[in-house]
């Protein structure tokens, strides 16, 4: 019961962006995906969510190849919080979150009591229920990000992919977002978070370091956040203060 990429390759315009990646995500895990810009992190999210098909290799969810899943079926299992979500003007927060119920509803089906309850729960968990009747454009960046997270939760997924969920957020909201992610993993979801900030990433129980399309490290933060490795991958000297939760500083 895993989300698994096996030997996947991906190329854009002839340039290889993912070269032979093997990655496994287990339920209840919070995995941080790190690496420099252009390393292929977002592409991996695309591969893992089935949006993009690998040139070679396979993407499998719970033992089945992703393309064997019906679109809606997949959306009921796996949710993505994109990097810069587009939120249409004029929509109430609650309406946006309700869109997460789409995979569970057919064309003509109206929302049922069950759907409204799931939406409410998702919003309460992300602390967005109090903005439910406000138009999304009146919310702050952090509030909006949480609304999108609520939408993903409304899908009732078992797997959650977060693509740079903390970029553009205030410090306070960054920490909050990571706490949400941890809690969701604790509740049994398999969570993959693409993270820019290495110190935030240090809070994950497992890190995967990507460099130019290849995984160069996969393990606990202490195993992965090592000075020589980071210095090589990020092409800049770094200092790592070891500890229960390592701290990374520019060298």
């Amino acid at each position, binding site marked *: 019961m895993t989300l698994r990429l096996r030997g996947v390759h991906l190329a854009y315009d002839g340039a290889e962006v993912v070269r032979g990646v093997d990655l496994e995500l287990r339920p209840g895990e919070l995995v941080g995906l790190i690496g420099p810009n252009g390393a292929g992190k977002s592409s991996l999210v695309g591969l893992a*969510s089935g*949006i993009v098909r690998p040139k070679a290799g396979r993407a499998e969810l719970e033992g089945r190849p992703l393309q064997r899943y019906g*679109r*809606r079926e*997949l*959306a*009921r299992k796996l*949710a*993505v919080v*994109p990097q810069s*979500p*587009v*939120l*249409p*003007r*004029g*929509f*109430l927060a*609650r*309406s946006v979150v309700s*869109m*997460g119920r*789409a*995979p569970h*509803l057919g*064309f*003509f089906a109206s929302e049922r009591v069950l759907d409204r309850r799931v939406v409410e729960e998702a919003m309460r968990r992300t602390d967005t229920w109090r903005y*439910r*009747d*406000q*138009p999304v454009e*009146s919310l702050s960046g952090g509030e909006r990000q949480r609304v999108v997270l609520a939408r993903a939760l409304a*899908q009732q997924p078992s797997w959650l992919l977060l693509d740079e969920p903390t970029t553009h957020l205030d410090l306070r909201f960054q920490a909050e977002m990571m706490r949400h992610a941890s809690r969701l993993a604790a509740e049994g979801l398999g969570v993959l978070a693409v993270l820019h900030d290495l110190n935030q990433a240090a809070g994950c129980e497992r890190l995967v370091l990507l460099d130019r399309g290849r995984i160069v490290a996969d393990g606990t933060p202490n195993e992965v956040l090592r000075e020589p490795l980071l210095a090589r991958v990020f092409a800049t000297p770094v200092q790592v203060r070891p500890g229960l939760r390592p701290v990374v500083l520019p060298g």
Partner: protein
Amino acid sequence: MNDRAGWPVLRRWTVRGASLLSVTVVVAVALTVGSVSTSPSEVAVAIAHGLRGRSDGALDLIVWQVRAPRVLLAATTGAALALAGTAYQAVFRNPLADPYLLGAASGAGFGATLALVYGASNAWLGQLGVSASAFLVALATVVAVVMLARRGGRLPVVSLILAGVVLGSSLSAATSFVMLADRERTAGVLAWLLGSFSFASWRDLALLTAGLIVAVPGALAARRAFDLLLLGETSARQLGLPVELFKWTVVLVATLLTAAAVAVAGVIGFVGLVVPHAVRLAVGPEHRELVPLSLLWGAAFLVLADLVARTLLAPTELPVGIVTALVGGPFFLLLLRHGREAT
């Protein structure tokens, strides 16, 4: 900061009911007003006769054969154009999209021109007639635009718009060129292009109604999908929407509807553009209300516009496309200003 509370069921149905009522009232008024004055009871009698297939005299003829198809055609055309506009605005995620974006108007204009100018000398064209010719060329144009814009199996929105603009301009130029060939008929072409319901027939109405019967249930079913598209194609896909298939289907159906509307009524602008915006202003952008209300308000708007077109300067008629432009243009400007201030 504002508040637009999530709509309670009562409010939803009140708005829908009020809209339906308005359309009915507008249609009733339009049936009673015309260059020959008629009282409401005379109109009712004539309609009753017409429904039973009777025709007793000029009044019956006027109300049942001239006014009724005209008013109903204006209503269905308005509904069709507003629906097509709503659909295009969702698929293209662009508030400036209107039903003629992919060249349906230019195509229809060219087809109509060919029939009007060469219809007398070319037996096949003459048989086909102006409406059918307009419809076919409109359809062919959009098909050509879609083929041009295709990238692999996908329909990128930007390519569609570009191809539509390019093909549209070429066809407009071709139309002007053909018009030069015969000055006598140029007047006829211009009149057709500006849009008019003056020769509305029950047959035209049947054609358009058939189109709506196909399109409306589909549009109502697709309301959630339209909302999803507003999140961006990737997110929509991730939420389970088969985006490419959906786009193709919407473009096809909206185009059929637009081509049918143009074929029977000429090119009437602003309805497809302005009505969805007006509805959004009043009730918000969610398609759950937007789709049905656009249908109703589009119908009412065009019936009113046609009423004004045929009574303002009686006994001459204004082309209805001019009335919609005169109303729609300033309204759209107001919308733009309101939009800017709100941000």
